[in-house]
């Protein structure tokens, strides 16, 4: 069930340059059923900005009825969000969408989690859930530059973690795709910029791959048709999927990216 709730901010912290980690308490954490789901946040009370902002859930603490998000301060909405402090209330709609299927990989198998920039956060909860199931996880995380790197330590707790930066200021210079070439895995989960997703999809068309897509959204719940993508099989009954309600996670090959 999707809920709309006024959630209290528990903490907010800048964990890398312009990258914020935001924890809120919410009754609807019980409704979160997979890593990779997202929420839709009304950043201000008035009309400015008007629309909600989609942000992924990066980790869930059901015991304390809390969940955490990690976002980059980009434009108007996230800039305003970054100004909020503990105790304030945030109007959040969630949980939304379908997340990563953790059961697609068996205990003892290896999952490769590939994240790019602000696509990294949802992989964190995924990693937690996979390892707790006994799956071996490898993380490959790409960032622009050293100051944008976050959560290396956190990911290391769950498995091998490779970092790539575009400018080579940290980790390996280059793209995540350069690193993953050399790795073995049974299932790949990825979230990040579209070119990265495309490259991965192409490279591993024979493998089991799950991608999390991003698209500009209106409603966030499947009603407005803003966030559609075409399905690969044009002959199918319905030739499109909605990122917000059918996704954001799709099996590679299912949709055209």
């Amino acid at each position, binding site marked *: 069930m999707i809920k*709309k709730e006024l959630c209290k901010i528990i903490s907010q912290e800048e964990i890398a340059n312009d990258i914020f980690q935001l924890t809120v308490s919410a009754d609807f954490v019980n409704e979160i059923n997979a890593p990779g789901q997202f929420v839709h946040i009304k950043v201000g009370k008035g*009309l400015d900005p008007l629309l909600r902002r989609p942000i992924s859930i990066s980790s869930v603490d059901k015991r304390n009825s809390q969940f955490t998000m990690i976002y980059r301060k980009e434009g108007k909405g996230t800039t305003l969000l970054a100004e909020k402090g503990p105790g304030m209330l945030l109007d959040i709609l969630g949980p939304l969408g379908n997340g990563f299927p953790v059961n697609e990989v068996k205990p003892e198998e290896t999952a490769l989690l590939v994240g790019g920039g602000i696509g990294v956060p949802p992989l964190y909860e995924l990693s937690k859930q996979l390892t707790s199931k006994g799956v071996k996880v490898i993380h490959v995380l790409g960032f622009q530059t050293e100051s944008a790197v976050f959560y290396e330590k956190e990911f290391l707790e769950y498995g091998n973690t490779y970092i790539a930066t575009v400018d080579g200021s940290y980790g390996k210079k280059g793209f995540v795709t350069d690193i993953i070439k050399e790795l073995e895995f049974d299932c790949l989960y990825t979230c990040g910029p579209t070119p990265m997703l495309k490259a991965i999809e192409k490279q591993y068309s024979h493998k089991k791959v799950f991608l999390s897509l991003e698209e500009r959204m*209106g*409603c966030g719940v499947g009603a*407005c048709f803003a966030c559609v993508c075409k399905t690969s099989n044009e002959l199918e009954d*319905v*030739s*499109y999927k909605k990122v917000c*309600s059918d996704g954001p996670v799709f099996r590679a090959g299912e949709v055209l990216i």
Partner: protein
Amino acid sequence: MSRLNIELPGLNLKNPIMPASGCFGFGREYSQFYDLSKLGAIMIKATTVEPRFGNLTPRVAETSSGMLNAIGLQNPGLDKVVSNELPWLSQYDVPIIANVAGSIEEDYIEVAAQISKVPNVHALELNISCPNVKTGGIAFGTIPEVAKQLTRKVKEVSEVPVYVKLSPNVTNIVEMAKAVEAGGADGLTMINTLVGMRLDLKTGKPILANRTGGLSGPAIKPVALRMIYEVSQAVNIPIIGMGGIESAEDVIEFFYAGASAVAVGTANFVDPFVCPAIIDELPSLLDQLGYEHISECRGRSWQEHGQLANHRA
């Protein structure tokens, strides 16, 4: 007894609040949030003869107090709407207004003829004003004679009353309204979106794949009110008003301007509960303003006080 019920051609509304076409899909999504029977009516997404995928993405862009959309009339097509969506909606006690779209006259006629036969469709909304389709659509909405002809032909085949949805992107809205009234329209719905655009600061290119899109939301409310004010004084058919409504106060303002019912579009995206919230707030707002029934508010902006049947005590 009710203070909110409104009778319009084909529509026996328990309250005058309904989601606007394209902002509520076919109701399924919002049925997660509340019982759709609570609504006065539902204006479903535009339906065309064939399924349409619509425009490329991005399809939405935010603006100050508004948003642009260029969905491009994506819909599963007449057959699916008739066989899947409308039967599903029939579980709710709520009249459906079917939004009818097309590229050529024949399209409109076919959709109208078929969809108006479905029992829970109580009225049609002729969408001659969608700014996001390349052929046809926009011209119907800007040339009075063309709009009139189309209205007449759709009236001939429709089994339910026909409301025509007017485009605000015209020099003379009254002329358009009178033309479709002369064509036999039973009512008007207005306004559709204003054509607008946003550019991406980094690339310099349009944010929307379709380049331009339709502006909706509170930003356009003053334009909607003005047009309803002008048109309601010039025609004898009722108006379902829309454009930026997000509160009970807004609803009253639209009634003052001359609307007989209202639709809520963009605000559903901001708050999925906005329609039931408005319905719940209206009675106490009426109390506060001293009205017994919401219909007393209609046209107050231009009516002489004497003219009002139920004047505020």
